[in-house]
């Protein structure tokens, strides 16, 4: 069953909270991973790998650098679902 955008956002917020301690309600679609949430490249990769497992999608390394905002990640994950 495919995840909706709302479900992906909520799931991502949990993964970000697990990795960085950032409150889940601070994670919004317009937030930049680096500029707003201050997530470094290593934490970003940890979140990406955990997101792959949680949503059963593949997020290639070369795609990670295009994911600037939380919204970019949500859109990518929703579209990548089989």
């Amino acid at each position, binding site marked *: 069953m495919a995840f909706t955008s709302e479900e992906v956002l909520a799931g991502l917020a949990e993964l970000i909270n697990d990795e960085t301690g950032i409150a889940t309600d601070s994670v919004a679609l317009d937030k930049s991973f680096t500029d707003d949430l201050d997530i470094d490249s*290593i934490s970003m990769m940890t979140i990406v790998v955990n997101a792959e497992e949680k949503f059963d999608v593949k997020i290639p390394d070369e795609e990670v650098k295009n994911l600037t905002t939380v919204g970019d990640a949500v859109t990518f994950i929703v579209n990548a679902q089989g």
Partner: protein
Amino acid sequence: MSAALTPSVGSPFTRILALGAARGENAVTNDDIAGPIDSSDEWIRQRTGVITRMRAGEGVEAVDLAEAASREAIEKAGIEPSQVGAVIVSTISNTVQTPSLAALLAERVGANPAAAYDVSAACAGYTYGIAQADALVRAGLAQYVLVVGAEKLSDFAKPTDRTISFLLGDGAGAAIVGPADEPGIAATVWGSDGSKWDAVGMDRPLKDAFADPDGEFPTLRQEGQTVFRWAVWEMAKVAQKALDAAGVRPEDLAAFIPHQANMRIIDEFAKQLKLPEHVVVARDIATTGNTSAASIPLATHALLAEHPELSGGLALQIGFGAGLVYGAQVVRLP
């Protein structure tokens, strides 16, 4: 009919008999190197866990560090240098393309005329060396093998590089592998993934630097995120295979000694492996830095100095790096 050939016959089992270590003599702090990368002590500590990296001075080469570490290992093993039948050095820091650092090292430590050769397997090199030493002793091609990881990586560190240079340290770790009454080195799980050949390595070929007299000497750089993902999640699978190949469970381990690449890799790796609390995790990178092939024996040496009670216990060691290449095995600590 022609005469029958006589094959070599070795010992059924092997173990690491002793270790030796040598580090660069200068403790370089984060403040010392933060300027050119527009960084800070806090930023470097948070992202890498490195507090200092040990670097060698001008007149000290990788072979000098290798000699000091090897002399200690040979002495602690209680053997004569002349009993060493093979010298395997893993290094990317040899000052020349050829001849090998190993041949010079064999001469310096009194192991001449032992077979001597270098291995180019970057940060996996020590585990490759242990795999080969184990095989050589079991096959009867050498009674004792000197395995060394030796690097002077500060020669390949670019002060303005933000990808890897600021992690790098200098050092050498040595091990003597010899015959044993019971298995002391389990089956090695090793391999390569050349599809990621560009992920970590030199910033350009030697030839290009030579053709451009105003250009800089080639230095190391990496694609950090690609390497991080591979080093944790792919290597966690390899580590599990090494445990399975050895026939041991995580709770049987006394120590986990991964290549000292970055504290964040080590921490995430340990998390993925779900190691029981009693398993001591090597974190030598905090004060030594990333010394590539030397990092596992240096970390093991430091761990045994700090926790002598680990001697005789089982350690899972895993090396991974440029190639990409990897090697893992469970060993009994000397």
